């Protein structure tokens, strides 16, 4: 039993490193929203028409959801 654990040690170590990779360090994003820049950002609707994101919350509150990807 002890021998099995010794053989598994490197794998457990690799798994632990992968689990706790500091994702924040490796991330590109600033991690802080800039509401002015968000407000002036241009997106498109599904027909391809340009839309300024800030127009969405001009009159009423908006829950703005950014999804990772389609699919």
């Amino acid at each position, binding site marked *: 039993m002890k021998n099995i654990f010794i053989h598994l040690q490197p794998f457990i170590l690799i798994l632990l490193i992968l689990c706790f990779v500091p994702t924040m360090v490796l991330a590109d994003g600033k991690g*802080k929203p800039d509401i002015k820049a*968000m407000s002036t950002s241009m997106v498109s609707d599904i027909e391809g028409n340009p839309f300024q994101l*800030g127009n969405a919350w001009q009159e009423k509150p908006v829950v703005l959801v*950014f999804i990772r990807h389609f699919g």
Partner: protein
Amino acid sequence: MRDKVDEIHSLGAEMIIVGNGNSQFATAFKKKLNLTAPLYVDPSLASYNAAGLKRTKAGTLGARNWLPALKALFTGNFQGRTQGDPYQQGGVFIVFPGDGLVYSYISKRPSDRPPAKKIVEKLKAEQKKLNK
């Protein structure tokens, strides 16, 4: 989150979704999930960057996602072919008129999402504050 659209509307707010694939993918996505919320696309990721959202390989491929991915697989939530930037992470914000950002959640990895209930509660609380 899409189950909460009616509740969000009842609070006098709107929910909008931004994705990073192209409009062709967005149309198929909207149809597949029967989405009623307005859907926009931003393949340039400019709005994602403005929102401070993370783009990370470690976040997408890291071992902390393996268990949630397996869980999703066993509960029948299969992920289709990735359409958009696979390393881009998401986020949720609540914005009031006048660029009033009252809530932000920046995901560190795919399985890192705020509970939809919490977002609706935050929206309710902010509406209450405003009406006082």
